[in-house]
């Protein structure tokens, strides 16, 4: 067993599950999308991205790319939420919420690709 792989797999999966949990529910209902879930998704995604630093393999590079995409999308979603909650005089409307959740859903897609890569890597792993 490789501890590095455990930590890495843990964070990739956690990033995807948190992301999924946040997106779940009516897209424009703010009560169904807890801001702490979004916050946790952002943090775990950033950590998952850092864990890919310095991996010189081909699959490691693709991992890094997908994680970067997910992280950037989630940060954008968080920025939209901050704008709606604190700056926009209308406050957090259903439209804003729909936009936040759809961007986070895009990040979810990237996270799913990350998991697919993880599975592919695991399945094709051979001890040479």
């Amino acid at each position: 067993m490789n501890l590095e792989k455990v930590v890495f797999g843990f964070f990739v999966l956690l990033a995807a599950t948190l992301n999924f949990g946040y997106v779940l529910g009516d897209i424009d209902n703010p009560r169904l999308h807890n801001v702490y879930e979004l916050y946790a998704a952002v943090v775990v995604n950033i950590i998952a991205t850092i864990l890919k630093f310095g991996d010189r393999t081909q699959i490691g590079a693709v991992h890094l790319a997908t994680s970067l995409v997910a992280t950037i999308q989630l940060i954008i979603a968080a920025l939209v939420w901050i704008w709606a909650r604190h700056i926009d005089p209308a406050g957090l409307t259903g439209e804003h919420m729909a936009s936040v959740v759809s961007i986070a859903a895009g990040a979810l897609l990237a996270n799913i690709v990350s998991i697919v890569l993880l599975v592919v890597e695991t399945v094709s792993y051979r001890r040479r």
Partner: protein
Amino acid sequence: MANLLQLLRRGKPARIRPDSLRRIRVEVPAEPPTTDAAFLVLRRMRTPLVVVVSVFAAMTFGLSLMPGSVENPERLSVFDSFYVISYTGLTIGYGEVPHAFSYAQRIWVTLTIYASVIAWSYSLAALLGLASDHTFRQSIALQRFSRRVRRLQSPFVLVVGYGQAGEAVCRSLEDQGRDFVVLDVDQTRIQQLALGGYSSDHPGYAASGRDPRVLGLAGLGHDMCEAVLALTDDDETNLSVVMSVNLLRPELMVIARCSDREKAQQMHDFAADVVINPFDRYGAYLVMALRRPSGFRLASWLMSPRGSELPDRLEHLTDGHWVVCADGSFGFEVVRDLESAGLDVLLVDPADGRPDVSGAVGFIAGAESDIVNMANAAHARIENDELFIAVRQNSTVNEAPLRAFDPDSVFVPTELLAREAVARITSPNYWSFIDHVLHEDDEWDSQIMDEIVAAVGDETPVSTKVDLDYTHAPAALRFMQTEKLTVGDLLRDPDDRSVRLAVYPAVLVRLGRRTFTPPPRTPLQEGDALLLLGREDDLAVLQSTLFHDSAVEYVATGRDVATAWVFRQLQEWRWRRRGSRSRLSRPDR
């Protein structure tokens, strides 16, 4: 299909060499043998970065949960918490924003300050530790080296081995204003290169030349690389360099040092341009000094560093009984040469005590220890004051006492090696002239030496090649279209044509054929190349003559031509009235 881009090389077109053992063209490998510095940083910084991010995340989360004060009962939103933690974690804060905190919030911010400082100092320490890490520094050095080599714009020589010979070669190359790249296994020698007081910084790296990837990084695959010198004291490394060059870049010139006959033969198999065995050469030069003193004097003068005085004739060098006191292959090589020249030679081992030199005319102290050599030479001088004494000097440490002893000849293997290598690299024409000197008879050599000394003085001249084409000599070519321009005309001073410049024409290359020491009356043709020896200033004057119509006209005919266009027209009109001809009306090409 062949890669078309490979055909578009910037440098000189690759010479096809029939003697290369290459069957398939292979790119010169150049990937660094160690990891990339940037990757190393990213790898090492993973944990510290994760710690910093986690601390910030946990603290932000916690702050957003802390209950507010009585005046502001609402908890901070996630964004407000993130904002507060950002400035608190990075700068230890500047107040309570957006409003005064409750005690719970203050306690949490205090915790944040300590936790974030710990996280920062940990990652800073990790970064500093990385900077002092050996692997990391080496990979930085390697990257810097390969970047500098890649950026070289002018032709350069790759020198493998920076020992005594390598250093002597580098000094001479620097003297000629040429670029070079140095490889040596020893880190301290590379540091010596950096501290060596060269006028510019030359790239050097500590690695073995045996690794073709290292050679590739040092510029073997570079378009501007023009020659490779394998000068390490290890024959096998030199052989491996010759091999790599022959198989990967067969068009490059390669000069190798070798002290073993078997290895030298193997180098010849790989078509090394020159294999220099200093021991073997020394014997040959000694014989030459004995049989053809003028030729030896001229050749060694031309090969010595710029500005050296004319060497003295070797005194009391005569035929007769010679004693060679040497161990290792040196004695074997020298005895072979002396015997083939018909001398009566006795080889003795320095371990057998003081050699007997009674009845001898020459003595060579050629042991591997300088102290033993000095002692033997001193003994020989006591025994027989008329003796010719040659001493082999292995290191520069004992140079001063040896100079004080003043033997008739000092043999420094590395110096001999460096001189020959540099003379060959300088230009093929320059070496061909020296080679010609080495093979002509002694009277010719003596006469030529007098001529050169009369023209340029008794310090070693500088050599230059002058190409008579439209780029390098436009004015001379325009003149030559209608009138005759001779070698002698070019050597005149454009200020006063009765004065001869301190320049000597050594070789005239016409249609690939070399004429040595062309007489001054020789007319020049378009496409000729001249190898000139002379003082640096005078060579510069000669070069400028080739670019100015009025100067060419003056040195060839003695007519003063105006430099400005208006005056030239006037002058021409006057000449036409007088009935004389001029070329200047002809439109330029």
